[in-house]
């Protein structure tokens, strides 16, 4: 427990609060984006924003894996799950995400589709081995943290000769998403979103290392500090970003030295490179079509590709116009700017993806901030 509680010590947080307050320049503002939903959650749970000076603002980024999946691809997964011969397996959060016309995988299950929830991707292989008469499809989603598991799954399926198993691959890559935010008109032209620096993700970086961030720290002149998930980690990273901005530097620094190296997990990267490849373009919820931002299955492993096996068609859909998830994912709006927040849209009956996952900004606001919002409002 030392490596958990030690990073939640209140006295050290008080000290970091004092250090940050002493180091910020009162003449300027610091807009820092935490990319990862895990950080959003830690920031709200521990009230980190309350420990920061008023001119240090946190902007919530798009790093919630189920939030950024395009509705069109979720629709395709629901259509697949509705086939009589298919058992669809995915991570728990994914099942509740609303698709077109407020359908979801969970509602499809209630209507008779065989949809299973898995904690580990490997459970999908166990199900496939136990039910040779069923077509078992793993609905793979997420950033670089879950991608190596999917690659491993495909290699295992090949080794075990599981002919009734395939993967609907929807993995996306983090650096492309960060770059798209920096390239977005809101940041570049309209000046509506200001991002001076990034708190880099913990687990994604454990896999890919700190090297991939070096390009845009340099190219876009924005500092990146990779931070651990605990509140002291986040505060220390904020202090490091404030220092870089004060000194006019834009480098990649690593606060999470206990989990992240410059090279990352090379074995996991090799597995991914063996089985998966970049797609030319991928649609993201909230960010639109982004070039080379997601992964598909290589032709050599095509027999395990559900898109080939079932000739999956992805059809364009219109989002619910009132739902502000796309703008919230880009950091342009806050959950409380959305008329549906805590009215029509709640964690019990979500309309937008940001309200579903524990890592979504709306869910974090609802869980930890609702009481204070009401008291204030």
């Amino acid at each position, binding site marked *: 427990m030392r490596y958990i509680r030690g990073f939640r010590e209140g006295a050290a947080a008080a000290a970091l609060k004092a250090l940050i307050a002493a180091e910020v320049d009162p003449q300027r503002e610091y807009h820092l984006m935490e990319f990862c939903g895990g950080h959003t959650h830690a920031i709200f749970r521990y009230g980190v924003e309350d420990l920061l000076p008023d001119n240090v603002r946190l902007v919530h980024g798009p790093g919630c894996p189920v939030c950024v999946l395009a509705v069109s691809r979720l629709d395709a997964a629901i259509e697949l799950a509705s086939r009589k011969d298919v058992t669809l397996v995915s991570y728990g959060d994914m099942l509740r995400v609303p698709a077109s016309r407020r359908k979801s995988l969970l509602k499809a299950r209630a209507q008779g589709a065989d949809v299973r929830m898995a904690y580990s991707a490997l459970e999908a292989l166990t199900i496939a081995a136990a039910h040779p008469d069923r077509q078992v499809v793993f609905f793979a989603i997420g950033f670089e*943290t879950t991608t190596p*598991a999917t690659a491993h799954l495909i290699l295992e399926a090949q080794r075990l000769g599981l002919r009734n198993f395939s993967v609907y691959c929807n993995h996306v890559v983090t650096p492309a998403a960060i770059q798209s935010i920096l390239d977005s008109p809101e940041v570049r032209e309209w000046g509506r979103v200001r991002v001076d620096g990034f708190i880099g993700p913990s687990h994604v970086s454990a896999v890919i290392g700190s090297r991939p961030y070096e390009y845009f720290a340099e190219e876009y002149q924005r500092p990146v500090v990779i931070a651990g998930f605990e509140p002291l980690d986040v505060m220390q990273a904020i202090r490091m970003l404030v220092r870089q901005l004060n000194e006019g530097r834009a480098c990649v620094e690593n606060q999470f030295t206990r989990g992240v190296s410059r090279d990352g997990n090379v074995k996991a990267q090799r597995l991914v490179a063996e089985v998966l490849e970049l797609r030319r373009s991928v649609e993201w919820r909230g960010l639109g079509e982004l070039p080379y931002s997601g992964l598909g299955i290589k032709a050599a492993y095509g027999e395990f590709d559900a898109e080939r096996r079932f000739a999956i068609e992805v059809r364009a859909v219109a989002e619910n116009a009132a739902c502000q998830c796309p703008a919230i994912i880009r950091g342009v709006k806050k959950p409380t700017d959305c008329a549906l927040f805590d009215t029509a849209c709640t964690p019990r009956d979500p309309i937008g993806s940001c309200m579903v996952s524990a*890592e979504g900004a709306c869910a974090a606001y609802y869980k930890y901030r609702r009481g204070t919002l009401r008291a204030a409002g």
Partner: protein
Amino acid sequence: MCLAVPARVVALLGDQWVETEVGGIRSRVSVALLDEVVLGDYLIVHAGFAITRLDVEEAEKSLALFDEIAARLGTTDALHPRLP
């Protein structure tokens, strides 16, 4: 999916599986993404897979730094986790 804490390896189960423990809770974890894992290693686990080994030496350095600034400046307890 991302909300994880370091888990200590308490048993090697063979064939790329280990048993881990956090605060008395034991789990079966795949170590297929790591090179050799030994008893007592701390692993960062994500959706059933260990994605990296915790560098204990670096963790101790970070904790020592926090202890040092807390001793120098920390007068009160600033963290009050909100319970959902």
